[in-house]
């Protein structure tokens, strides 16, 4: 057993053995990749690999294989490294060829003038944990990895266990816990004194670190390791904001930090390589390895979804899973609808629309037009923390979400759009740098009257662009660059939202609970975890289904549209048809139907009509008010 896990514990050994066998035949590189891919393809094997997301960095062995679930936040410039180099063995004085791939540092005595040196190219990606990942998703990922044990070292599992318990409540204290063993020799066993001293250092140290080093997370208040991933193959296949599960060799060599920090001002003038980087740039590109580890990528799997409850890889497992779930689909939908109706204070129509919104997805783009987006504006929301509670419920259902409270202050001060910082040469992240299918909850009820300054106007424009075109224009100072995205935007507001939306539903509460907080908490508590888990699977799965429209139904839809126009050309426009087609699509998918039926179309028409009559009613109400 232990030998079979060498590929996890000592991957570099595997790489080097293959390199030594190869006799400089360049095919060895492909063989290495094939080997690791093969190992990971084995059943369950990927769950044996410890994950950077769950296990604190200091519990991981350097140079072992780890995985990391992340979002590509920035792509640095490609760098050239010594793929193969020659060293002189000090004992035998013989020249030895060594492999520099998957390593940050070379061994001693490199012969820089050797003719056998092979220069190769690699690129560094700055990766952060997936922004806005819901606590339940994190937990669930952690639990699934609980099963795996690193067998070669007996002490690791126990530590791991401890780390899970602490994960949720006190992440802050962890670095200190780790520091203790190091300080012990100095303290000469005066354990009591240590205990009293430790807390004081605990409070200062983390804040120091964070102010010193901005880890550049898209969302405020995020935690977790950021990672510099060295990518060797398939550079063009990766894009910014991709969500990946990366398997690679962990490198935390302290030399990296020392080299970065050692700065001799007198050398700066003479050495051109040192003077080209500003301190900011150095900090951004060579942060201490203890804070931002390096990961040498061996294999990366793009994540189609970030739901731990669904089988991850598109294998036979998954299709079996899907077909088994399809049977239940309609019943789960009914339960979820009932749940959401309760949450939305008894408003069934709004619940229906919320459900459709939660499974919406930009499935394709026609020139500039994103198809399938379904931004919902829930107007008439009760004030006083109702929206906050509503968000918490949404967060319980989807794997990634973020609530943006649109108060004047946040709109004016927050950075939504990522911006290139040319001094540090990195992309400074913004709150709109989100992974695909993240639920963005815009809380407009928080907006009060007042003045938006220029950055506020820019932020509102960015939100408008996001909703209308599903794109974010990143600010590159001299020009803007457009990045398409796929974010579900839900706007809650009192009146009609100032932002555009695909569909507005005025909320009509059927019940007015005296204590809103209590009401929502009881609803939430009433659900079993297994039930909630079903909802989660349902929402993620419905989104991935294929969909088509038959010619016959196409014809019917066309006829219907012509008829509607005949009756009242003013009220039904191309825009309305667009929306109804999306509603029909989502409605069919929500029932697990992959083709549009005539019934499905009628239903879509029906609920859209209900919604419209409600909006018009609202309008006339408002018209009478002043």
């Amino acid at each position: 057993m232990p030998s079979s896990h060498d590929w996890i514990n000592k991957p570099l050994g595997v790489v080097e053995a293959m390199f030594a066998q190869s006799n400089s035949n360049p095919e060895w590189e492909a063989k290495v990749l094939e080997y690791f891919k093969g190992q990971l393809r084995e059943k369950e094997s990927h769950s044996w690999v410890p994950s950077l997301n769950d296990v604190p960095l200091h519990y991981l062995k350097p140079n072992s294989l780890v995985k990391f679930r992340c979002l590509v936040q920035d792509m640095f410039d490609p760098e050239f490294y010594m793929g193969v180099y020659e060293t002189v063995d000090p004992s035998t004085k013989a020249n030895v060829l060594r492999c520099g791939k998957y390593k940050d540092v070379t061994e001693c005595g490199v012969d820089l003038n050797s003719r056998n040196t092979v220069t190769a190219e690699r690129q560094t990606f700055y990766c952060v944990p997936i922004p806005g990942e819901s606590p339940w998703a994190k937990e669930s990922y952690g639990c699934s990895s609980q099963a795996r044990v690193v067998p070669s070292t007996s002490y690791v599992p126990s530590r791991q266990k401890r780390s899970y318990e602490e994960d949720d409540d006190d992440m802050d204290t962890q670095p200190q816990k780790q520091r203790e063993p190091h300080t012990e020799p100095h303290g000469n066993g005066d354990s009591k004194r240590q205990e009293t001293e430790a807390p004081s250092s605990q409070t200062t140290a983390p804040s120091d670190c964070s102010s010193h080093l901005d880890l550049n997370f898209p969302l405020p208040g995020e935690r977790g390791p950021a990672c510099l991933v060295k990518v060797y193959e398939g550079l063009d296949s990766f894009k910014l904001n991709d969500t990946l599960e990366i398997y690679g060799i962990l490198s935390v060599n302290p030399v990296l930090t020392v080299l970065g920090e050692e700065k001799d001002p007198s050398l700066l003038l003479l050495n051109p390589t040192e003077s080209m980087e500003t301190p900011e740039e150095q900090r951004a590109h060579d942060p201490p390895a203890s804070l931002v580890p390096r990961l040498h990528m061996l294999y990366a799997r793009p994540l189609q979804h970030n739901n731990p409850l669904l089988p991850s890889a598109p294998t036979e497992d998954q299709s079996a899973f899907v077909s088994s779930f399809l049977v239940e689909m309609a019943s789960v939908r009914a339960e979820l609808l009932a749940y959401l109706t309760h949450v939305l204070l008894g408003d069934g129509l709004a619940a229906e629309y919320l459900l459709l919104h939660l499974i919406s997805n930009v499935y394709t783009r026609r020139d500039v037009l994103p198809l399938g987006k379904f931004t919902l504006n829930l107007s008439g929301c009760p004030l006083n923390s109702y929206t906050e509670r509503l968000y918490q419920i949404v967060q319980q259902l989807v794997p990634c979400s973020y609530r943006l409270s649109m108060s004047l202050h946040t709109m004016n001060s927050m950075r939504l759009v990522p911006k290139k910082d040319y001094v540090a040469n990195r992309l400074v992240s913004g709150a709109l740098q989100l992974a695909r299918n993240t639920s963005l909850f815009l809380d407009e009820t928080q907006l009060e009257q007042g003045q938006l300054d220029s950055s506020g106007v820019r932020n509102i424009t960015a939100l408008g662009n996001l909703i209308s075109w599903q794109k974010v224009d990143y600010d590159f100072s001299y020009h803007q660059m457009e990045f398409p995205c796929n974010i579900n935007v839900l706007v809650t507001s009192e009146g009609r939202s100032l932002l555009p939306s695909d569909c507005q539903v005025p909320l009509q509460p059927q019940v007015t609970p005296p204590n809103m907080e209590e009401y929502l908490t009881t609803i939430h508590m009433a659900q079993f975890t297994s039930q909630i888990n079903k909802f989660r699977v349902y929402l993620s799965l419905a989104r991935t289904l294929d969909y088509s429209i038959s010619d016959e139904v196409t014809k019917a839809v066309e006829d219907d549209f012509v008829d509607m126009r005949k009756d009242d050309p003013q009220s039904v426009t191309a825009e309305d048809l667009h929306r109804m087609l999306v509603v029909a699509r989502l409605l069919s998918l929500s029932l697990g139907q992959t083709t549009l039926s005539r019934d499905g179309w009628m239903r879509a028409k029906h609920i859209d009509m209900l919604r419209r009559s409600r909006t018009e009613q609202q309008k006339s109400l408002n018209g009478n008010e002043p």
Partner: protein
Amino acid sequence: MSSPTSTPVGSKPSSDGLASPPSQRRRGQDSSNGDLPAMPTSPATDIASPAVHDTSLFSSPRRSVLPSEVDMSSPLIGVRGTPVRQRPDLGSARKAPQVDLHTELPSADGAVASEQAAGQKLVIWGTDVNVGTCKEKFQRFLQRFIDPTSNEDENAGLDLNEPLYMQKLEEISVIGEPVLNVNCSHVQSFDADLYRQLISYPQEVIPTFDMAVNELFFERFPDSILEHQIQVRPYNALKTRNMRSLNPEDIDQMITISGMVIRTSQLIPEMQEAFFQCQVCAFSTRVEVDRGRIAEPAVCRNCNTTHSLALIHNRSAFSDKQMIKVQESPDDMPAGQTPHTTIVYAHNDLVDKVQPGDRINITGIYRAVPMRENPRQSTVKSVYKTHIDVIHFRKTDEKRLHGLDEDSDQKLFTEERVQTLKELAAKPDVYERLSSALAPSIYEQEDIKKGILLQLFGGTRKDFSQTGRGNFRAEVNILLCGDPGTSKSQLLQYVFNLVPRGQYTSGKGSSAVGLTAYVMKDPETKQLVLQTGALVLSDNGICCIDEFDKMSDSTRSVLHEVMEQQTLSIAKAGIICQLNARTSVLAAANPVESQWNPKKTTIENIQLPHTLLSRFDLIFLMLDPQDEAYDRRLAHHLVALYYQSEEQIEEEFLDMAVLKDYIAYARTYINPRLNEEASQALIEAYVDMRKIGSGRGMVSAYPRQLESLIRLAEAHAKVRFSDKVETVDVEEAKRLHREALKQSATDPRTGFVDISILTTGMSATARKRKEEVAQALKKMIQSRGKTPAMKYQQLFDDLRGQSEAAITKDMFEEALRALADEDYLTVTGKTVRLL
């Protein structure tokens, strides 16, 4: 070792011996040229430091050369005493370890070089470059190369049928700027082998070129005085064009890449040679920089005191250097990735040549330097630092100043691509094909798409500055107005994504400043910097302005100048300038009353000043046609949008790429001119347009409309890839223009097309009726006899009672104003007085 291996680099003791110029002149030059740091100063000190002859020029890093191998003692060195100037751009600063060839290398490697003993062909170690042949070839190139088809702006004023570079040498002798820019593609077409050597071994070949050109130059112009010897600066190497495609194979080769400057550093004085003096015996010595380091001599060779030597800064030699960061230009990038940056070093006179924001083409040598070895550490980072030592800068936007077409030389089309484009152009229905390929997700609106298509192609640029008219606008401006939700914004977005220099702004969010240009104080340098806005940025492109009607008046007013004169004048914070803004404007406007009112004219519906409206060539209404057949087609189109398969979508994407190239090609290479028939047809069309109106006593066409017609006809000829504007083009231009007019300039009261709606903001009938009301009012007042003052309200009621047609308050007030203009009455508050 101490043989006079004179290379163009560095100080050579032999130069004085060989040349015998009047020493006065030389000294005079020396004092006037303080920026020549590494010039030989006194022969005495040179002799004192014989150990440090620099031959690294002829070697790449990690390669070595035995000086005596390279026979370079040609007579040109120090020709007529013109000093040699160091070329740090070629990497002389980083010197390779000097290795004795015979001891170090196996005989196989030395074989080529060691033939020198027999007086045979020599090649520079590690290359296949023979100095003599290479020199000869290059001289032949200079003397013979003729490029009759050259259209580069640099060659302006030169006789294209004479050897190009000899003329340039002549220019150098006149102007005195000792730099010769050589287009690599010229070298390639003249001698492919020489070109290959230049690309592969720039470090060795360029100095050889330098020698060759100097020999030639001083032979021809023996009396000219130059600051230093001529340096050859090759550019336009075809090796690499894109920053993304740089790879380890390009190291130490000459490359050309394009990009945008994002940051420039302060000037860095780089020490080339350190001057040490012994504190004890005042003995001095010089040490050259070796790979970024100065090895301080530990022992004085004169008095043998240890650690007595001190660095004397004032007598050390420095050269200028600047670090520049260049970022990939947005057009070169694959979607979804971030742009790459590259570090570039500029040396000597190339320092401060570029500013952040400039788009440039850089020719230089790509370098990779291993990270500094640290003696205290056993391991090193296995990463190289890469940069480019620049040899030549070429600003791409500089060309704009010359008024040449931006896209020339920029966009290269492969033969096959051109072939497919030409095949497409030969099809009779190319116009329809292209217009339907435009924004396929937007349904029908064929004429509008055709109009936008013509706008994308644009007219022919003409220059009438000789006759005082200035530039003649070639860009077509289009305004789309109509009901909200008729996919106007979508059309704008599509166009913005299609054209390389498109800008998209919304009238609501943009201010005059954001559109034009603003002055900003650079926080670092405290320098005032002119930041350009959307209109200037879209020079030679299209500026899409959404919600045109929501724009503030002051913002709109800047458009007046842009849309006719195609320039932007700025007078702000002490900066007064005129910028080019040859942009087409594609604007979209919503009607004031949310829904288009068919009973009102265009002007009344969108409330835009007619002065601005008349600057649009085409104004289209995007209205809901409300017709069953249309609805059916629309529904079909939309439903198809939602269920079409992947392949069909693929197909369309291909179309967009083809369309892009087609437009770029036509804009670059096709410049149609009117032929006789077409001009005749245009004249007729114009006369016809005028005639229509004159029958009813109104003017229906102005010269502006004629200009529009010409532009549209030219654009249509471009669509056909035709160099001549023919009658078909004029026909289509007429049809489209009429179509647009029919939509936008129809007088709702009479149903006639009336151009004065757009030019004066009021239809002729409306004007006539205004006059009638005024006359009626006057008559009524006169009939009352002598009543010097009347109540306003009463007068209004009386007039309404009297008149058959309904009179609105507006009309009444207008009539009063008209009468006041006649000095018949005055209105003060609520009373009307006769005069």
